[in-house]
């Protein structure tokens, strides 16, 4: 940061600079820093031109804003540069291998971005008369058809906004179904290895969560499961393939058992990628399953969202689906938006309007691009790649569960024991090598877990290089070169960050620095 003379407020002496290879600006070649946007403002600039408001008689009823908001004024080029610089501090699938287990970081095709922005799609208003959005409704209807066909399920609720939201939808449908039967069940069974959203969702539906332990082979312990089942169990939430990257071999038995006791089978479909076109969840006894369009069907993760989590439903649960949904009317497509008529039993509404249309478009474009043949190929290549990594690293890392995995390879940290290097340290060293680390410390059932999901998008050459680099790092760790790990990352835009400090004293927003005029934005510099 600079004062208004262009000098750093914490001066860097030449000696300092040389010593630490620091620069005057704080930039290092193409690694460019940008202060907070609030530190770059000068009052009176404009970044968006617009017409002068016509003077009119105000109808605000005198409730005018009294104080300035406190935001900075910048020009368009400054804002552009700021965000370009920030972007360059991010890792991304487009830039490299991003084997984050459970996240399905696959290629995000650009054509999907393009079609989502077409005039007549990207600009549609959700409250247009349905007669003026027949193309949009056709998209929702087509996507629903693909999802139902892929999963072998008779119905789908399109509106949930993400995986967790889909879980909520599915478990609410389960609860509504029980209530419709006059039953009030209280427990939901969830394997220990489940993603955190599963228990959190069950709790939101007023259920008590009961954890089911895993077997030696990484699947749910059937004995424990059977023991916990009972007439007060509303259902089971099972991820399949599970979060250990394994197919739950007893899945049909699980379905049968839960059905026998009058419960429902919720399947977390986050890992659907592994089984596309090879098996349909509907054929395994599933009653509800969310589909993360932002995983399996490649709508971009966008640094954390938005996503879309349609939920396929069995005949038993379909009547309870939330509004809205698309129907085939006599003049084309229509939409049911209220809890009445065909939606009389609906448990309610999950979000404003009709769902994540932008994601629907991208997902449908992705499906059309793959077709039935490509979808199956996705699963095959995704599983092939995971197993290739598993075998490639088997001499260097320990797999807690033997045998073939599905779309992701799980390792534990037993090989690192005694080296002084942790899973986290290894991850940070991977950053220096140009990789995004795998998922760590999840699933919780494995100590120091490393969950590697390469996806079908990666070439064998990428995997070979990754296996080589991981082997190199692991050899180093075993050779006792601990310091190289503890200091890592060395080459990222930041070295390790103080997360404890951040949580202890949370600074969650910028505020006007003390000692400066509260009403005025500070004059600091970015280039």
């Amino acid at each position: 940061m600079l004062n208004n003379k262009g000098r750093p407020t914490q001066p860097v002496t030449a000696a300092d600079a040389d010593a630490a290879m620091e620069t005057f600006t704080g930039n290092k070649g193409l690694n460019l820093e940008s202060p907070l946007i609030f530190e770059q403002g000068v009052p009176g600039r404009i970044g968006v031109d617009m017409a002068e408001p016509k003077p009119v008689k105000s109808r605000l009823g005198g409730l005018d804003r009294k104080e300035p908001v406190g935001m900075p004024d910048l020009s368009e080029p400054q804002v552009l540069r700021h965000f370009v610089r920030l972007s360059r501090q991010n890792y991304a699938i487009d830039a490299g291998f991003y084997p984050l287990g459970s996240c399905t970081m696959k290629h995000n095709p650009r054509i999907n971005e393009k079609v989502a922005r077409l005039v007549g799609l990207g600009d549609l208003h959700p409250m247009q008369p349905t007669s003026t959005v027949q193309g949009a409704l056709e998209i929702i209807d087509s996507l629903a058809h693909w999802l139902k066909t892929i999963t072998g399920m008779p119905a789908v609720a399109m509106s949930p906004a993400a995986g967790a939201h889909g879980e909520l939808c599915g478990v609410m449908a389960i609860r509504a179904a029980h209530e419709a039967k006059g039953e009030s069940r209280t427990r939901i069974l969830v394997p220990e290895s489940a993603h955190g959203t599963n228990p959190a969702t069950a709790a939101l539906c007023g259920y008590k969560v009961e954890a089911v332990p895993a077997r030696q082979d990484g699947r749910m312990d059937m004995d424990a499961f059977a023991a916990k089942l009972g007439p007060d169990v509303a259902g089971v939430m099972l991820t399949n393939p599970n979060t250990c990257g394994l197919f739950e071999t007893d899945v049909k038995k699980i379905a049968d058992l839960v059905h026998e006791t009058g419960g429902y089978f919720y399947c977390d479909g986050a890992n659907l990628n592994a089984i596309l076109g090879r098996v349909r969840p509907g054929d395994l006894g599933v009653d509800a399953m969310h589909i993360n369009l932002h995983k399996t069907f490649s709508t971009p993760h966008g640094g954390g969202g938005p996503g879309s989590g349609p939920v396929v439903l069995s005949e038993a649960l379909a009547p309870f689906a939330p509004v809205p949904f698309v129907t085939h009317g006599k003049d084309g497509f229509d939409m049911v938006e209220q809890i009445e008529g065909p939606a009389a039993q609906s448990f309610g509404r999950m979000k404003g309007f009709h769902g994540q249309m932008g994601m629907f478009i991208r997902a449908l474009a992705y499906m059309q691009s793959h077709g039935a043949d490509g979808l199956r190929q996705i699963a095959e290549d995704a599983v092939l790649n995971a197993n290739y990594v598993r075998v490639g690293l088997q001499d260097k890392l320990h797999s807690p569960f033997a045998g073939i995995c599905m779309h992701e390879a799980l390792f534990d940290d037993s090989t690192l024991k005694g080296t002084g290097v942790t899973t986290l340290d290894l991850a940070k060293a991977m950053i220096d090598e140009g990789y995004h680390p795998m998922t760590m410390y999840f699933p919780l059932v494995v100590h120091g877990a490393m969950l590697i999901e390469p996806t079908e998008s990666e070439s064998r050459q990428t995997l070979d290089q990754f296996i080589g680099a991981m082997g190199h790092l692991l050899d180093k760790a075993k050779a006792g070169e601990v310091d190289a790990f503890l200091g890592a990352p060395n080459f990222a835009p930041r070295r390790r960050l103080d997360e404890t400090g951040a949580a202890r004293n949370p600074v969650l927003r910028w505020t006007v620095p003390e000692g400066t005029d509260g009403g005025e934005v500070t004059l600091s510099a970015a280039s």
Partner: protein
Amino acid sequence: MRYMPHTALEREEMLAKIGISSIDDLFADIPEEARLGGLLDLPLHESEMTVEKNFRNLAAKNLSPYMTPCFLGAGAYQHHVPSVADHIIQRSEFLTSYTPYQPEVSQGTLQALFEFQTQVAMITGMEVANASMYDGATSCAEAVLMACRVTRRKKAIVSGNLHPHYRDVTRTTLQFMEFEAENLPPVLDRKEDFDAHIGSDIACVVVQNPDFFGRIQDFTALADKCHEAGALLIVVVNEVVSLGAIMSPGDMGADIVAGEGQSIGVPLSYGGPYVGLLATRQKFVRQMPGRLCGQTVDQDGKRGFVLTLSTREQHIRREKATSNICTNAGLCSLAFTIHMSLLGETGFAKLARLNHSQAVTLAEKLEVIEGVEMINDTFFNEFTLRLSADASSVVEKLAAKGVLGGVPVSRLIPDDPDMSHLLLVAVTETCSVSDMDQFVTALKEAL
């Protein structure tokens, strides 16, 4: 297939390395009777060229609000999104990154989130904001849950003039929990009165400003009333541009603000994805749902940002988490931040003034039409008209004339004869004078 790099030969070599002879061996764990033999009953893969054509054909079946005079609002607003915003969110590094779990290589996303949180807090007049919720409606529901946690009370009073979708989502979200939402009926002819409802068992009162019908209110007195009763005031904002012109919820004493951020940076996109805003007081921060980004330093003492206070979240707290949310509205919040940064203090205020002046201009043209009655005493950029005819048939007639002339209230509040003639009309900076004139002419003809 263009997205998959393996060749047949490579697949074979890889199988050999794995030590199996066929792809089928990888799927041996699937119960035999459930394994699919052939292909799914779906079309085969298509070229990019064909896919693009498919969607252009689908787009052609819709009436584009961009190319049509459009006066639709009701919680989603047509605004001009600067091209820079859409350009930046398409940069690979923002578009194709995950949640910033590895802060050393995610400073771009994290710093932008910190800026987003700051902007949201600033415009709402609150102390802190989170890193986004799915949309305004879910944000509203989460705000109610949060209020219940903060007050350890179980009942929410929900204004009858809150957007019906927000009311429905809140009710739906609470229905299976030990909490309860009392949805009051819509009130058209007078100020809504909450006094009778507020008591010591009330966690919060939820109001919207401007309300669903477009009316602006000062909720300061209501806030005081809530606070006296130990309840929180939740203010919902679904047209954030209004905050550039009117008193902020914070100024009125709101405890939580739940908002829809779509108006800034996010295209209409037939209703989603949008971006839910959630802002509150610092003291409630540990009861907030959703991600929070915080400032810290790295090993070399350089400022940096991380996701923080994650002990609230599902991946740590599981069934005890404040919410089950994981994926949020990341890229939309980025678009919001970029658009808001472009506007800045000056532009945000001007945009709000411009919207209001446009709305007043149109109102003056419409309210003099025979058969049209303005029901709002106040409004920002949206108001409600009582028509001499059924509003939804008028809207259909207008659409046939190529004018998207407002939202019939009955689409959102059906089966209520009081509502059947009401039309919600929104107008923003995107409307030209000729758009307005086309609307006026068409409406006269339709009535």
